[in-house]
């Protein structure tokens, strides 16, 4: 259950969205539980499903947000910058930085932080384990820059 919360937080920036995503992931797990065939670890299966649901929901929301006026978007950005000036817990700052990554990078770094092996990460993401190490290094550099305030 903890991992679902952690994943959903990385893909949402409001409590309302977080609850929606969390509910949707739980519902999908419950709905598709019979599809689990035992070939992969149960946790791997949960990771994969949770990430898929979150990435899909994020894409849908992005499409909807395209209809927002630029004024609304600007207001959102300004309010985000105001938030950044307030003193936040390190984990909140880290989440904020993670949310600025692409959907796939978010998934990779979450799995890495959850101490999944490169092989497992590659399996969940459907890619080659050799690429994962390079990708993680790149993501961490970017996260560092974001946390240090070098990137907007």
């Amino acid at each position, binding site marked *: 259950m*903890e991992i679902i919360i952690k994943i959903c937080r990385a893909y949402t920036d409001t409590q309302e969205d977080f609850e929606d995503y*969390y509910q949707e992931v739980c*519902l999908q797990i419950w*709905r598709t539980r019979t599809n689990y065939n035992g070939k992969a670890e149960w946790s791997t299966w949960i990771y994969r499903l949770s990430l898929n649901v979150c990435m899909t929901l994020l894409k849908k929301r992005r499409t909807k947000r395209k209809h927002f006026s630029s004024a609304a978007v600007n207001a959102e950005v300004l309010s985000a910058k105001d938030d950044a000036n307030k003193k936040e817990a*390190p984990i909140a700052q*880290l989440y904020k930085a993670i949310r600025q990554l692409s959907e796939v990078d978010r998934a990779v770094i979450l799995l890495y932080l959850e101490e999944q092996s490169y092989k497992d990460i590659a399996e969940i993401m459907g890619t080659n384990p050799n690429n994962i190490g390079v990708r993680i290094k790149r993501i961490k550099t970017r996260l560092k820059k974001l946390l240090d305030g070098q990137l907007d």
Partner: protein
Amino acid sequence: MDNSIENTWREGFLQDKALVAPRLNKLYDQKSNHLIDRLLRLGKRNIIGIVIGAVIVLLGFSLAGSWPAGLGLFLLLIGLAYYTQIQGKKLAQIDKGENSYQYLTKLKLTLQEMMENYIHIYRWVYPAIILLFSFGMLNSSYSVEVIAEQFPGVSTILGVPTAMFVCIMLFALTFSVLAKRIFQEDVGLIYGPLLRKLEEMITDMEHLR
């Protein structure tokens, strides 16, 4: 810094309340509201489409010199749009105060009842559209000339060669007989995904109960 990211992550979840799971109880309330909103929106678009179609048909047939058929089709389609609007109000009147399961079950029953009503109506609407459209086309100034040229002296009924008249009537009759099937396909094309979602949600909730 490598360490600090990992440590921040590890330590971040040790002390704070970040891992409190939200309750799941509102999920189906939100989903059912979303579903009914989409159904109503789609219904509204459908009505607008019918009205626009009615106006186009009226103008088209009038320009082609066959205004009675155009007027007939226009009135038929406007009547259909009006009827659809009345039916749509039935959906909006379902009590949202009840729990989601009862609400969705009522919604499903209301939709089934509406479908039955529509099937009765479409048994007449489909053939009427075919007849008005065909006779309208065949009685347009252009078609009348072509028919007179191509089939001189052939026996006609309402200005249409008898064989063609019989074919049109048979075609209209077939649509009337198969109205249920055609209507279901028609509805499936437009509302299919939403209806399947409704069915899915009710099944989920029955299991959860």
